[in-house]
């Protein structure tokens, strides 16, 4: 038995359904109804418009820094669209569209970036975790949540998002490995937007795809056109079904692009060329999907206008609600909420210290 090749159990596929012109591969076109397609469109468009509004708020100084999502709407909406409400979403910090699709309120998004901890609040019954900023670390939570689902024999699924950069963190590795070993119902969705701040995908890792990293854990992986909402949705549905039927975790690499700044504190001109970005304009996930919808006569320019108006109004109301909420949140003593179930004595003393100080300052 000399040197011989070992057969590995999985292969890595690339999936694409809608091309840049909005032409669909009919063999692969998912069988879903028109309302669902419209919902996908609306989810993406809302994500885009809200992103634009947040950028304005930030530039006006009404909000602090945040991570824009423009360009990544298909990767997000396509993936979460495969979930049920009883499933769980574990976001990183660049899945605003996905979070809102699932029921996170826009006013809470604003509140958080405006510097109020209450923006992290999640209403009871909504199975979204708050955003996780330390890159890659949330992948383990998703695996643990999925274990708990399996343990309780509840047929739910956890879906976790992370970036291309996140695949370099040790926690990503440990999460994939735990998920593989315990065969838990979790779907790992990588938004490969080609950049981790200024580090291009090619410098992040030498592997040809990110999807192939799943092989290291005996977990199936697939690469999809992340600007193709149908491809993302199809891959996610497959992975969610696999998870739900007890066949364990999967990883999906969505190849997309960060069209905007990393965060509003970032200046991409320092590290990437305008041309690089321009090449991706043609691949825009929303334009492409609108072409498809039009070609299927699912909607018209007129209908788009109506939706745009509706979304604009929704966003306006959310901004107003957030402003009202901010007025109620002016008391700095609120920082002592939610530390432990009960405030221990020395923290009570500190609370009292601050209370007195605030009283003195105001008199």
């Amino acid at each position, binding site marked *: 038995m000399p040197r011989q090749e070992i057969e590995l159990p999985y292969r890595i596929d690339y999936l694409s359904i809608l091309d840049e012109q909005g032409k669909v591969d009919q063999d692969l076109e998912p069988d879903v109804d028109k309302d669902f397609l419209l919902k996908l469109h609306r989810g993406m468009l809302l994500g885009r418009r809200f992103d634009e509004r947040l950028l304005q708020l930030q530039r006006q100084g009404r909000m602090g820094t945040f991570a824009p999502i423009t360009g990544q709407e298909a990767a997000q909406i396509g993936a979460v669209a495969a979930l049920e409400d009883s499933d769980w979403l574990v976001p990183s910090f660049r899945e605003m569209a996905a979070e809102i699709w699932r029921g996170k309120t826009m006013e809470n998004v604003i509140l958080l970036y405006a510097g109020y901890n209450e923006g*992290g609040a999640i209403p009871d019954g909504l199975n979204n975790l*708050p955003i996780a900023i330390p890159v890659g*670390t949330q992948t*383990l939570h998703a695996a*643990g949540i999925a274990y708990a689902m399996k*343990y309780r024999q509840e047929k739910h699924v956890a879906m976790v998002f992370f970036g291309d950069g996140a695949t370099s963190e040790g926690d990503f590795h*440990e999460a994939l*490995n735990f998920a593989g070993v315990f065969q838990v119902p979790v779907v790992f969705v990588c938004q490969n937007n080609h950049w981790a701040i200024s580090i291009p995908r090619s410098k992040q890792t030498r592997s040809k795809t990110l999807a192939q990293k799943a092989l290291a854990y005996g977990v199936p992986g697939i690469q999809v056109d992340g600007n193709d909402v149908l491809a993302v949705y199809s891959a996610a549905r497959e992975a969610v079904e696999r998870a739900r039927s007890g066949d364990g975790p999967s990883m999906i690499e969505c190849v997309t692009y960060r069209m905007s700044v990393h965060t509003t504190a970032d200046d991409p001109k320092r590290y990437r060329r305008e041309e690089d970005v321009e090449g991706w304009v043609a691949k825009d996930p929303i334009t492409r999907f609108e072409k498809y919808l039009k070609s299927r006569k699912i909607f018209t320019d007129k209908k788009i206008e109506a939706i745009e108006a509706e979304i604009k109004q929704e966003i306006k109301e959310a901004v107003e609600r957030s402003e009202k909420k901010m007025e109620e949140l002016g008391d700095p003593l609120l920082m002592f*909420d939610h*530390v432990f179930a009960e405030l221990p004595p020395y923290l009570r003393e500190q609370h009292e210290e601050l209370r007195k100080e605030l009283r003195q300052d105001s008199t």
Partner: protein
Amino acid sequence: MAKMTMVQAINLALKQEMEKDDNVVVLGEDVGVDGGVFRVTEGLFEQFGENRVMDTPLAEAGIIGFSIGMALYGLKPVCEIQFSGFTYLGFHQLESHAARLRGRSAGRFTVPMVLRAPYGGGVRALEHHSESREAYFAHTPGLKMVIPSSPRNARALLVSAIRDPDPVVYFEPKALYRAFREEVPEDEETMELGRSRIAREGKDITLISYGAMLHETMQAASALHQKQGIEAEVIDLMTIAPLDDALFIESARKTGRVVVIHEAPRSFGPGAEVAVRLVEKSFLYLEAPIRRVTGFDLVIPLFQREKAYLPGVDRIVRAVRETLDF
């Protein structure tokens, strides 16, 4: 009631809590089939099966992060890190998530997990197997840091830790695992976290300690009493954070003199916090400087020099005498 070692008492706490509540699961390296490298989880795998007593891959961030996920979903994971010296590989999961998710979600999510780890010196171990760095955890807002000192309180504190709605780091003084036995009631017993106790009453000086060093301290107190009639009051902190200062302050107000004893490195260690609380809250009662009898500001040496590194009865007695003579 049965006389138990600390290992048995901790095992009893786990077993009974698992019997009572399906949400309690145990996970870590070698906690299952092997029963844990110190046998703390012995028999649990056989009784509760592999879904509740999980042998995990070798990854500490994994163990802690996975536990956080389970806890978010409503389970009550009790994870073991094989030695406290390996907790640092998952420290970010504790600091950045376990301790913060309640706050981050404005109260929606909680992380009712316990991280158990053997800590401290005295068992002739290799490097990284004898650390005492409870201060890292005590300084971390959102974490509780508990250290028992006897089989009975180990059992009761662990039960309370498991039921606690917030994350608790529970360090087990491995030097005490089999050092002595104590009556541990079969019936449920809990012990409020965040409370210290008087381990010995006295009026001349207050000695504050916890974990394995509590026993050196108690022996020192006996010796002082027998040889010189000095009545030392000994306080066992049990919870390092949130620190219960009420009891030791009351004691210090009575005695006016205090020695703090721990095996952690001295600088920026737990003794500093105890001392400053005394200064903040009982300044006028102090008749002598607070003394720290602690590990030196060194990585704890391998076992040939460990005895000289760790506080021992002689060192404590000397510090007490000097404090009394001040």
